[in-house]
């Protein structure tokens, strides 16, 4: 008992007596640990956060009806298959050809909030429609009809049009069509995408129902899911299995490219983490070596007084382990704070604490510190105490 007490006293006394040096050593270890825990946290979290950024490219999965069109219930149950925290947005689309000033225009009815979430790249001047009777028109349509935000327009729907002109407006053979339904709209926004969407007009599902007098049914549903390509494939299969009346497909252009770019980004952060960590750990080791090397005389004196090599190593290691553990703990906290700051400023999202990282950081710190102390202690204990004391 007495021996252990003495050991503890020696270590604490040594740490307290040589305060300034110990602070230097502790600081060095804490810096190393901060970089370790900070970078590892970022590395683990980057795919998730960056993945969310990649959702800017829009929908990465779509489902269409296996036969006719998708009913509301079918769409709902298909969307329900996707885990809530992975679903960024879902936008069902219902396309019909309507007429504006007797010219056929493709009208899409959708859930505006869903469309905004699945297609964040849509550049809308004005506002997204928020209630019935409001409409968003593509830029090309706006140019054709010379419409501006705030203008009124009327859309008519000919219920007797033949079904063959399904996707694009069929301008021929419309002379005897009876125009029985019409609805007035206020233009709230003009859409600029650089794609075919600019030729469409967008209204709410309710308006489309009123205009056409048909039940709500979807031609296609766009989904934006934040998941890796493997997970996406699993979700796709799950949807196809759960709701046989719809066929889910991945948008290859988006998923394939995302995998390519994201894996590069991840490799970049990984490599940077490794290089930074390796260099920092060597830095920590050299500082520790310098701090311990200073005490060659002390080691020599102890040896001269009859201390065994083992007891000297045990004492120094004890100090090293305490320093390493303390530095590791401080570093874990600072590293998390750093990762949190990065995540907030880059991705505007907070990062979740990874509890396993704390013991890992502490263990690595202790290990590096112990290894770094070992070199000078060995060289000091290996030589004759007389030589050490003489200063050679």
């Amino acid at each position, binding site marked *: 008992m007495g021996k252990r007490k003495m050991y503890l006293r020696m270590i604490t006394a040594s740490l307290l007596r040589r305060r300034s040096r110990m602070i230097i050593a502790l600081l060095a270890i804490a*810096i190393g640990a901060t970089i370790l825990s900070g970078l590892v946290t970022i590395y683990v979290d980057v795919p998730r956060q960056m993945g969310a950024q990649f959702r800017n490219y829009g929908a990465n999965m779509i489902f269409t009806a296996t036969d006719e069109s998708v009913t509301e219930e079918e769409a709902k149950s298909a969307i329900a298959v996707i885990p809530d925290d992975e679903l960024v947005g879902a936008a069902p689309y219902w396309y019909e050809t309507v007429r504006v000033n007797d010219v056929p225009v493709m009208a899409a009815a959708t859930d505006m909030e869903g469309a905004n979430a699945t297609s964040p790249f849509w550049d809308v001047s004005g506002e997204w429609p928020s209630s019935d009777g409001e409409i968003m028109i593509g830029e090309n349509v706006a140019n054709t009809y010379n419409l501006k935000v705030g203008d009124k327009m009327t859309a008519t729907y000919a219920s007797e049009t033949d079904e063959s002109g399904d996707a694009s407006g069929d301008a021929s053979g419309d002379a005897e069509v009876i125009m029985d339904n019409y609805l007035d709209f206020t233009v709230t926004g003009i859409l600029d995408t650089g794609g075919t969407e600019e030729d469409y007009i967008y209204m709410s599902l309710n308006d489309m129902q009123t205009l056409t007098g048909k039940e709500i049914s979807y031609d296609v549903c766009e989904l934006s899911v934040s998941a890796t390509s493997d997970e996406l494939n699993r979700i796709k299969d799950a949807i196809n299995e759960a709701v046989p009346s719809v066929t889910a497909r991945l948008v290859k252009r988006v998923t394939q490219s995302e995998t390519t770019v994201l894996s590069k980004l991840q490799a970049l952060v990984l490599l*940077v983490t490794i290089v*930074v960590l390796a260099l920092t750990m060597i830095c920590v080791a050299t500082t520790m070596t310098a701090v311990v090397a200073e005490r060659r005389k002390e080691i020599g004196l102890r040896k001269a007084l009859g201390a065994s090599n083992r007891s000297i190593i045990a004492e120094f290691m004890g100090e090293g382990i305490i320093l390493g553990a303390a530095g590791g703990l401080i570093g874990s906290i600072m590293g998390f704070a750093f990762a949190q700051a990065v995540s907030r400023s880059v991705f505007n999202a907070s990062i979740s604490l990874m509890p396993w990282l704390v013991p890992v950081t502490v263990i690595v710190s202790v290990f590096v510190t112990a290894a770094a102390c070992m070199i000078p202690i060995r060289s000091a204990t290996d030589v004759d105490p007389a030589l050490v004391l003489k200063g050679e």
Partner: protein
Amino acid sequence: MFIRMIFKAFFRQKKKMLMIAFTIALGASLATAMLSVMLDVGDKINQELKAYGANITVTPKSSSVISDLYDVDGENVTGSYLAEDELGNIKTIFWAFNIVDYTPFVTVSAQMDNGSDINVTGVWFNHYMSLPTGEELYAGITSLRTWWEITDGEWIDESEAGEENCAMVGAQVAQEYGISAGDTIHVRGSASDVDLVVKGIFDDGGDEDDSVFVPLDTAQALADMDGKIDSIEVSALTTPDNELSQKAARDPSSLSVSQYETWYCTAYVSSICYQIEEVITDSVASAVRQVADSEGQILDKTQLLMILITILSMVGAALGIMNLVTASVMERTQELGLMKAIGAHTGAITGLVLTEILVTAVIGGMAGYFAGLGFAQIIGQTVFSSSIEIRPMVIPIVAVLVIAVTLAGCVPAMRMVRKLRPTEVLHGK
């Protein structure tokens, strides 16, 4: 005497000085590597994002207003086309260097042997061009459709003989007609007919699965449309949009002269579009928002992420160096106390220690700079399979960092030297 003392110090404490130099070299190499990678990461990621395909489409002026509204069965009925012989001009604009790839499109409808209609799209696959500037390049759809999965066969290679009568068939079409690679299909256009050897089947996962892709000339011959093209897809390296570019995109004439210069000479997607419109007669170039906007966002985020990691590692390197310098000076209290005891001024001691450390720092820093360039290249080669550009601006940053940090590391030690009382030190307290 001063020089001799310094020399002596180096030889006597070879090991210790070597360790300090080594640590400073590590810190400097870390800073160099991170700065080099950070400064280059924008370009590299931009290049990677080209996987998403074209970010600019060019269409004829009149068709861009009403194209899809009257567009029946994929055939251009508005009667306006772009001229094929102007395609080379795209590589002559101010930002020609930023144009990564482009390809013309011409879609004609044709009939299969059994009478069913089919869309035939003429494109460049890997078209060879030699420009008036003397530059030679290959452009085409091969690198603009990286997501195409070739399920059977291979890409068309335009440099091989007989490739003009080859076709790439979309998965949907292939499934419908039971076509596989190596088959020959006969298609009849409005002007002529042709036998096509199916070179490959592709899966696009989108609309293009319903088309057959053939070399441009072949499609033009089918509908007698020599020299005419429907649209051009351009993939360009761009700078993320800001307020100026958004203002310019709405109306370039609203800018002041200096704003216009800045805008025109920055690789914004809107200025590249504007320059393309200048060289292609009667064309409208518009940014594909899906690609252009997302690219900007991801670029910004990646750059910011790298900047913050760089700052962390530079702070880490700085504190590491500072720490070691402090520790190594403190270690020498006895020696410094002895100097004081025999009459040295604080200033003289400070000068001596600083010179020693600074010489070490410069040597270590230089070694570290070159090692850092090596690390940067390793990162560049492993991640992006291309080298990281060596930027001269990294040198002054690293130099200032190393010297400032080393000096800062000496400060606490110097304060200690000033307070040192020789008797106490020599006594061993």
